[in-house]
């Protein structure tokens, strides 16, 4: 029994690796062949498709463009509130205020994404019944809800990055007679930029992969390239979901596998970059990993 035990315990991770390997191999086997310009653009010349001169019907380009716009817009909406809140939490908040803010962020982080989607949906229903009868689910609404989803990620990583900075830095800067706000914005923030970047990339990955929010707030299967803030749009995760239920032929299915592979690669790539940045940042700061910025 004593001899056997280490091997029994090794079964647990082995099983996980095996399951993941099977899923990955299956995805690769089905989708790898389709990874080509045709997957993105169908039989439209790529340049014309990218410039929006020719509509793409049999490719993922509109979905990719939609996801791209969505992610950028989300980041733009979440950036200032996220960073500001993180800075306040790390540098200014009294213990009581910090407790309130971290409670709010914990609640937000724990809220399922479908509830965020429902929030957006309710918002539109209210607006339609009151003073904007033409309001409809749209790109902007999706981005707003997604920015709620990524807000806790940005706040906690910003706060952690600031707290990992050495104390000497603050003391020296204050002793030199700088105002606290100058110290924060001119010295601490630039010093923490790598940690901040890691958090922002993580938020990027999170908003690119989420499906439940955009399902309720305006993603559709056939919208073409995103036309404007107030229009419905296509997105990569929604295209994958839609393909699973509604595919017509083998070609559709192959495209679905291609899309799944694409999204998987994208999110793994983003998270790897964030991971490397974060590790490098924390190692530079001698791994002073402060507690208190709950995620």
């Amino acid at each position, binding site marked *: 029994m004593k001899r056997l035990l280490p091997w029994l*315990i*090794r079964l*647990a*991770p082995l*099983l*996980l690796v095996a*399951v*993941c390997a*099977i*899923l990955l191999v299956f995805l690769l086997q089905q989708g790898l062949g389709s990874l080509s310009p045709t997957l993105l653009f169908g039989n439209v010349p790529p340049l014309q498709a990218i410039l929006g001169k020719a509509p793409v019907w049999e490719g993922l380009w509109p979905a990719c463009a939609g996801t791209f716009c969505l992610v950028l817009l989300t980041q733009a909406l979440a950036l*200032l509130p996220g*960073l*500001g*809140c993180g*800075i*306040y939490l790390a*540098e*200014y*908040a009294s213990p009581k205020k910090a407790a309130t*803010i971290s409670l*709010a962020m*914990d*609640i*937000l982080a*724990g*809220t*399922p*994404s*479908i*509830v965020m989607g*429902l*929030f957006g949906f*309710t918002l539109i*229903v*209210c607006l339609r019944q009151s003073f904007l009868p033409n309001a409809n689910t749209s790109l902007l609404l999706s981005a707003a809800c997604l920015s*709620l989803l990524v*807000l806790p990620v940005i*706040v906690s990583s910003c706060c952690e990055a600031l*707290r990992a900075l050495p104390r000497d830095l*603050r003391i020296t800067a204050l002793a030199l007679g700088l105002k*606290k*706000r100058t110290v924060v*914005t001119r010295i601490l923030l630039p010093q923490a930029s790598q940690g901040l970047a890691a958090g922002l990339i993580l938020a990027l990955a999170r908003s690119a*992969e989420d*499906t*439940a929010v955009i399902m*309720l707030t305006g993603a559709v299967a056939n919208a073409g390239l995103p036309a404007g803030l107030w229009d419905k749009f296509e997105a990569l*995760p929604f295209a*994958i*979901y839609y393909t*699973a239920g509604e595919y017509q032929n083998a070609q559709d299915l192959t495209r*679905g596998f291609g899309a*799944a592979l694409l*999204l*998987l690669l994208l*999110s*793994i790539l*983003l*998270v790897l970059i964030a*991971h490397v940045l974060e590790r490098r940042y924390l190692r530079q700061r001698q791994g002073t990993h402060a507690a208190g910025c709950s995620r």
Partner: protein
Amino acid sequence: MPGSKLLTLPHDKDSEADLWIKAATVLAVLAVIALCAMIVVAALPALFSQTHTPFEWVWQPYHGHFGILPMCASSLLLALSALIIAFPWALGIVIWHLTEEEPALSWARKAFGLFIRLLTTVPTVVLSFAAVFLLTPLLRTAFGGTGMCLLGATLMVSLLILPTMVLVMESGLAQPLERLCPQGLALGLSRYQLLCHCLLPQSRTTLLQAAVLGFGRACGDTLLPLMLAGNAPRLPLHLTDSTRTLSAHMALVTANEVGGAAYNSLFAAGLFLLGTTLCVTLALRRLARAKSSGSTV
């Protein structure tokens, strides 16, 4: 943070935050309050509706029955059964990862940490897509029917919550184990013995944290149950029954507009989901507090 407290002078104009920082903080907190308030207010008409109460066991929108109780039950059932699979599995993985002493396998230990990190970020829609075309046909040949059933969703949800649980357990167990190691190893105990016989019996809070977090994640996930569980709106009595969770129900109702009362039940479902995850969040904070104020082992 005692450090930053020390450096803040009381009532000093210079030590106040910039306006945009304050505004951002207020905005972020208000957004959370608005989210909760909106869901609650929207759900009120449904909760007190006399004609179309959501508190019944039948969902037949064309016959005026808008009960969401079967979905509540199946959400909880799915989360619990996923937890039953994922918890021992995660514990096994953590025990291995913390106690592997074979020098030849140290590379595997290091690689596994990154692997788990990456697993937490696999998009659920990709996971569901792979499972629809791989697991569902398997279940179909094994149990008959369509293959869309509680079992399939349970298996995939447990895979989804596994990495998070592993990370939580590890972050709670790794440091105490390292503290125990010098004395323990000198006494002739192995890392495995230290972890399983000395540390784990005292680490109930950490294990509970992992379980509660996993439960919350499992309750909130939408895509896996939506794509894998078959979506029949009834109480699953068997693992191979088709079922519909609250989250999947919400996605389905908004996708196929049925009408006013159906929307009402949607908000009731949202409220129930929000309430559940709120309880999970509060429980987690409580556990974290208990841990920081309790024993340091």
